[in-house]
């Protein structure tokens, strides 16, 4: 029964016309969108792995992707109790500042990974949700290939997108369509207005195309990713007083 379902699903994914025709949601970053063949695919499973110590950055990146792909629908964020202690509680004002309306968010607190997966499978059957984020710390045994298959199947039923946000974990075999490795990237040096959410995002797995690595900035006002302003696009004029003084100091 399950094998049949999987086969049917594979067939529907492999059908050439459909894959091209399926709506993609551009994330805003031109190079990444090109790699993703137009944008992030809704109704499938995506994985975001946080670099060690970069959990907040991965949270932000996932929030950005989920905000893009949910198209104004509501979001369910599932987190473990342990996660709030270790990595900080999700802050509504933080989401607001980030450019995601907290009124769209539902937060589910669960005790363990098994509960999180179970809740995710339930939630993915609700077509009114835009996306479900499952935040899982560590490498629980229950989160195996079978679990990710189940999530993928649940996603496909009602076309709800799932994001598996992993902390303190190494990528393993899964059915995810994309897999991202995210770290925070430094703000451009000497910027007056620093502190925008800038990510070093590596697309390490992409079912539909090439992989790549970019430095992206989330624009909190437009709700889009963009090429990070590296500060070096226009080189600082070396003859102006500030730069000249710095050069003099370094000599």
């Amino acid at each position: 029964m399950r094998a049949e379902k999987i086969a049917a699903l594979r067939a529907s994914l492999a059908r050439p016309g459909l894959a091209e025709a399926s709506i993609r949601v551009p994330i805003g970053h031109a190079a990444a969108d090109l790699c993703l063949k137009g944008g992030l695919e809704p109704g499938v499973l995506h994985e975001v792995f946080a670099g060690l110590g970069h959990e907040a950055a991965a949270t932000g990146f996932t929030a950005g992707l989920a905000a893009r792909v949910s198209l104004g629908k509501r979001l369910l964020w599932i987190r473990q109790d342990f996660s709030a202690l270790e990595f900080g509680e999700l802050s509504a004002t933080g989401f607001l500042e980030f450019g995601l309306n907290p009124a769209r968010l539902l937060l589910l607190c669960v005790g363990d990974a098994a509960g999180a997966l179970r809740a995710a499978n339930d939630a993915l059957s609700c077509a009114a949700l835009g996306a479900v984020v499952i935040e899982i710390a560590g490498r629980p045994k229950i989160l195996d290939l079978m679990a990710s298959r189940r999530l993928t199947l649940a996603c496909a039923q009602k076309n709800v997108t799932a994001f598996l946000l992993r902390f303190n974990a190494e990528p393993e075999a899964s059915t995810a369509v994309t897999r991202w490795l995210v770290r925070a990237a430094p703000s451009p040096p000497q910027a007056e207005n620093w502190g925008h959410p800038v990510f070093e995002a590596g697309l390490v797995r992409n079912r539909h195309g090439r992989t790549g690595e970019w430095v992206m900035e989330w624009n909190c006002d437009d709700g889009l990713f963009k090429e990070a302003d590296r500060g070096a696009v226009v080189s600082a004029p070396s003859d102006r007083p500030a730069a000249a003084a710095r050069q003099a100091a370094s000599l």
Partner: protein
Amino acid sequence: MAVAKVDNALRLSAVDRKATALGLAIGQPLANARAMLPALTVVAANEPDDLKLLTRIADWCDRFTPHVALDGPRGLLLDVTGAAHLFGGEQALLNRIRESLKAQGFAVRGAMAGTAIAARAFARYRDGTVIAPGEEAEMIAPLPVAALNLDHITTHAFRRAGLKTVGQVASRKRAEMTARFGAGMVAILDEALGHGTRPLSPRLPIPDYWKEQGFAEPIATEEVIRATLKSLAAALADVLEKRGEGARRLEAVFFRADGAVRRIAIEMGVPTREPAVIERLFREKLDTLADPLDPGFGFDLIRLSASRVERAHCEVVDFDASINEKADIGFLVDRLATRFGSQRILAFQPNDTHIPEAAWLALPAQYVQPTKLMWKKLRSVGDAPRRPLRLFTRPEPVTLLATASGAQHLRWRKVQHAVAQCEGPERIAMEWWRHETPPPARDYFRLEDGEGRRYWLYRAGMPPQWFLHGVFA
């Protein structure tokens, strides 16, 4: 025979049949009883356990009427108004209760009358009788004054005055008695005579509607239980629909054949009467019970009661997708709340304060009401976020170190991070109008380390201490 300490003296609190035959009675001092019968077997009374047992019996009695009240240390009052005909009449009901309890090994006395006090008196002195309406005064007249269950000073006073029976007491003028014993005693007397009645205070809240299904042969399988719940839900939905109401809280009560009773409740975010939804929520609940439903020898009665109902608007099939979406989300929230508890599925609302950790509320999504407060962004367009995405519930103490070269380091969780950028302070004073002595004001700084991690930390107190409060994306 059990003994307990009353008024600083050991008195008998329960006696068995043999002891009664030998002339012992409840309330007698233990010393007197010992003087009469030196070979008494005495155990200490265990009141909490007695109460627990009485509560379990009351649970069992729930099958006859939802209106069961505990009465004193060893009595139960059942209001069977409107329920007796379901069990073949009053006498049949009374006999059934008495026989069943006797079969379970209890010594039972019971009677039925128009008022609670009269019923209690008859239970003590005329076991097994049903008093026809209006006959209370006549029937109770020959009973001794003690039948009124007044305090023993009053009873003693009546006896000294030569008033030995209830009838004699009732023959006195009301005014005299009120002057001597107070209005309370007269009220009790009137009730005993069948005039006027005081309401019982039920042990459990009375449900608004309920439907039940009894089984001649106890049922134990999950499928039958589920099917029963579904058919009960359908029956309940009919009633609710006629009244234009929906249930917010439903309780399923499982009466086990051996007398144990289990109650399982579910709650809904919006008034609901859809049997499929109700059955689904109960299935979720039964699946996730920490202490699973144990059918034992089977359940002989299952009841579904709506203990909180609200007006529900007529459900019109709506082509407006946003309304269906709302209903879908509502159902999902109910399911998750049933499975994980309503405190676990939360929705955010703004809160009217500038204290960072209190600026929003995470409320159970099932009960959240629309608010007039608006979300207000702190940053202006084009600025970086001013509040972190992840906030620590308990700010973590950190140290800021300055090396000889002037570079700063942040030490958090035993790891040092080189500070690349820093901005601040943003002073946030605590709310002096809420606290007698408000906590010290905090100076918040935004920090970025060499790897790009962005922190939000503050300095507070005297001498100043640093705390890490959150992490930006």
